[in-house]
């Protein structure tokens, strides 16, 4: 039939559009390295805010780390926190403006190292905030040093022969710690390395935002991510390495779901 030979040019029309970049993302170009999981997670958050139509009601907290410039990319109100103190700042904002959707976005150096106290106490108090934790097992911004979440045997610039438990201790599973705290309402661990996982992550983060309206406690979503530059791999290799090495130690899935 004649319709069968529709050309690519004819297809590219507004009525056939199925996916485009969210309006919540600004036109600024992301400073992240090619293939970084941070960017995918930013995109997911922007899509959720757009779909829930809460652009004017959302306040984000940017951390210190690779995602320190997050406020440049999201067209919502954002506040920059001192290193590791995003949950403390989010607590204050949420208590003063309880009708707003408040989320923190932190990496593993911010949330699991310098900000451990703030993280645990915010989750333990059950602050009605959404916490998004990007775990790539390395300090990406400062040059690929060992992070608390670096795997045993994993090479970094400060562990060139791999992480040794006798010298550097064990990697910390923050999500497994906060799941045991009474203040958390929804805890999940996801990743963004395949289309299927991106869809699952989007569902989890969307739930974490929706539950905030119920005022039941902290919603915590860990996103296991890659760091191609820090791991010294190509983006495709780093995703494969992550699936083979990170995911067995940080298994994906919902760790705490509210009872229906």
């Amino acid at each position, binding site marked *: 039939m004649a319709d*069968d030979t529709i050309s690519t040019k004819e*297809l590219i029309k507004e009525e*056939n559009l199925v*996916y485009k970049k969210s309006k919540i993302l600004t036109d600024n170009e992301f400073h992240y390295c*090619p293939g970084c999981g*941070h960017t*995918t997670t930013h995109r997911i958050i922007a899509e959720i805010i757009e779909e829930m139509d809460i652009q004017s009601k959302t306040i984000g907290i940017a951390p210190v780390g690779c995602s320190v410039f997050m406020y440049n990319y999201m067209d919502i109100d954002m506040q920059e926190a001192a290193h590791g103190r995003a949950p403390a700042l989010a607590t204050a904002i949420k208590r003063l403006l309880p009708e707003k959707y408040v989320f923190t976005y932190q990496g593993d150096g911010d949330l699991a190292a310098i900000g451990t106290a703030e993280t645990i106490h915010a989750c333990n108090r059950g602050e009605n905030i959404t916490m998004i934790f990007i775990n790539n097992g390395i300090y990406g911004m400062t040059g690929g040093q060992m992070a608390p979440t670096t795997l045993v045997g994993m090479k970094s610039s400060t562990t060139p022969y791999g992480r040794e438990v006798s010298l550097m201790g064990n990697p910390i599973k923050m999500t497994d710690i906060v799941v045991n705290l009474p203040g958390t309402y929804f805890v999940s661990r996801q990743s963004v390395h395949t289309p299927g996982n991106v869809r699952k992550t989007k569902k989890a983060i969307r739930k974490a935002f929706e539950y905030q309206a119920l005022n039941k406690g902290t919603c915590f979503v860990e996103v296991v991510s890659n760091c191609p530059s820090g791991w010294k791999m190509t983006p495709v290799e780093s995703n494969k390495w992550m699936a083979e090495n990170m995911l067995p130690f940080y298994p994906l899935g919902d760790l705490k779901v509210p009872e229906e």
Partner: protein
Amino acid sequence: MAKIKGAIVVDIDRCKGCELCITACPTEVISLSDNVNDKGYHYAYMKNPDVCTGCTNCAIVCPDGVITVYRKKVS
């Protein structure tokens, strides 16, 4: 049988050539161009536009959100 035809548009100047869309594409539509963009990256483009189904997998894994997807049912 109803056939679905898709097409992608890549924002060339924002593409960083990470190749994640290439591995995500189930029908091997996308490839990296021999040319480079303003930043010096080889950018993604539709090498086999005929087999694109508009599944949006490439756009969903694209970290920088440079891919726009169009889809139409053709009978």
